[in-house]
């Protein structure tokens, strides 16, 4: 724990350093200088930090409580959609069709009136509540049924994967009222500030860094509490915890709900920076990737999970640029290699070898394998 505290402190210092250095290098260093940080790179950093928050959310439940969710991208996407709805309302009459209330896609579908679930999204505060509340509510309902029925292990993972997939299919439908397969894009501004301006981008990155640091501290506080110790106890011996008088399902439920809203907040910060949200964010592979970041970084160490997200995504940015077809294979190989040789992730490289966190890797390999298979199959057709 102490060795983790030290690394955690270093992680926080790093986040703060990025929050200071990135804006300075972008705003005050001239573009001609080799030290200048392009707005593209700045946005990339912001994106990675959103992924790091998602990784924290996944690690909290998987690394500590032993609950392997293969559907966390769904919570991330829901938070992103909520932010997207606010950004769409912000466009106002500047859309292609110039309707002051209805977003373009609704005009295109000949809708006359704003659907009820879009009411209120012209207020930023309303969107903020929904961003955390909707993922939390979904996790509460889903988790209540799943944990109460003692659905665990690979069955829980498959159900979360199915949940994410079902949401993806639903959001693809035009009549759901979320823009169908195009999703939301062409955002103009946030709280009155131009989203395309460098300064707005800088502020978004700083806000994301602050959110990442706050998420880390919140997760750290949970993990260090007696409840956090109980999560590890549940992971080690669930029935023992139950016979000690703990209502295990309620502990699992609350940490799942917290983790889901954290993922939602990460998604909400992600959308204004990348400028688009569409149903592909619900794709099952996204949830699997998030689990892989955690495994690569170091399951059960919060800073490891966050760093894993940054490193894997950095590699992804490189690979999808240089060798796009190979990315999924590289990711799979990375995961298998880490599981086999670095059961504690990259964090385990530095620390002395202790007992490996027992492998819940099988379902991930299975899920990833099926995706590689499907993508291969579709290419051969």
């Amino acid at each position: 724990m102490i060795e983790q505290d030290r690394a955690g402190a270093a992680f926080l210092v790093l986040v703060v350093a990025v929050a200071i250095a990135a804006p300075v290098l972008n705003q005050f260093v001239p573009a001609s200088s080799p030290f200048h940080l392009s707005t593209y790179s700045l946005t990339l950093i912001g994106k990675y930090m959103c992924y790091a928050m998602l990784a924290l959310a996944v690690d909290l439940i998987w690394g500590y409580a032993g609950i392997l969710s293969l559907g966390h991208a769904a919570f991330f996407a829901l938070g992103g959609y909520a932010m997207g709805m606010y950004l769409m309302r912000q466009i106002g009459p500047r859309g292609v069709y110039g309707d002051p209330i209805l977003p373009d896609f609704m005009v295109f579908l000949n809708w006359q009136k704003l659907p009820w679930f879009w009411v209120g999204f012209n207020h930023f505060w309303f969107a903020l509540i929904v961003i955390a509340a909707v993922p939390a509510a979904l996790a509460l309902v889903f988790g209540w049924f799943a944990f109460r029925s003692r659905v665990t292990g690979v069955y829980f993972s498959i159900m979360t994967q199915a949940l994410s997939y079902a949401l993806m299919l639903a959001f693809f439908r035009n009549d759901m009222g979320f823009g169908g397969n195009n999703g939301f894009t062409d955002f103009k501004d946030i709280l009155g500030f131009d989203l395309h301006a460098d300064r707005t981008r800088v502020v978004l990155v700083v806000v994301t860094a602050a959110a990442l640091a706050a998420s880390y501290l919140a997760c750290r506080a949970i993990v260090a509490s007696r409840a956090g110790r109980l999560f590890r106890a549940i992971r080690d011996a669930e029935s023992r915890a139950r016979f000690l008088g703990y209502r295990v399902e309620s502990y699992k439920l609350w940490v799942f709900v917290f983790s889901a809203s954290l993922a939602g907040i990460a998604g909400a910060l992600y959308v204004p920076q990348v400028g688009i949200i569409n149903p592909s964010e619900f794709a099952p592979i996204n949830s699997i990737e998030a689990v892989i970041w955690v495994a690569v970084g170091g399951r059960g160490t919060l800073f490891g999970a966050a760093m894993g997200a940054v490193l894997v995504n950095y590699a992804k940015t490189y690979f999808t640029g240089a060798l796009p077809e190979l990315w999924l294979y590289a990711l799979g190989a990375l995961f298998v290699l880490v599981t086999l040789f670095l059961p504690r992730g990259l964090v385990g490289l530095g620390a002395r070898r202790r007992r490996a966190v027992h492998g819940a890797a099988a379902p991930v390999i299975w899920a990833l394998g099926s995706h590689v298979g499907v993508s291969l199959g579709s290419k051969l057709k």
Partner: protein
Amino acid sequence: MIRPPHLPSPDKILTLDDLTVSFDGFKALDGLTLSVDRGELRCIIGPNGAGKTTMMDVVTGKTRPDHGSAWFAQDVDLLALSEPEIAQAGIGRKFQKPTVFESLTVFENLELAIWGDKSFWKDLVARLTRAERQHIDDILDVIGLTAERAALAGTLAHGQKQWLEIGMLLMQEPELLLVDEPVAGMTPQETARTAELLLSLAAEHSLIVVEHDMDFVRSIARRVTVLHEGRVLADGNMDQVQNDPRVVEVYLGA
């Protein structure tokens, strides 16, 4: 709630009446009737499949019987409670395989076993009180693991894990302890130490010990119950039981 025809007598800690449990036609318990006195140390023996573990499962709420009743003390209907509720009511169970939280320290294992109202929100802010710390220290002393308090439970020897698990049950201040095969896989020294530990607990708690090791049973038992095919076959002190021809036939003689 259906009350039994007559309430269990006040000197009984556990009263099982006519319990029947079947799994796909196989009767794991077949009209089991058994009672244990307050402060008693009862050993339960029997060949494999006699229903020992199923009986413990019923008492701790893991398995629901098809028929019968199970009462804890005078007024707690065990069949109406969930596993955590039964634990809270004062029944502790030690599993056959030592089950401790391996990635936590010995001290943290005992901390999580503190008796009390447990909820996620309380445990987020819970701090150990001075009295709780003292209680943990006392239990560490009883189970002989004071020197290992900061060690990860996963690094303990087999026997030490068993003692830690018993210590976790003691943290709960249970009235009744169910102990499933405490000395399986132990060295003779560890077995002797465990016998001492269980005997020292018998005064303040009631204990039910399921065990295969006959020498161990002889060393601690005052009263032995033999189960066979889900029913009580014989009951009495070790000598009576060992000389019972039916017992010899199904178990000891085999």
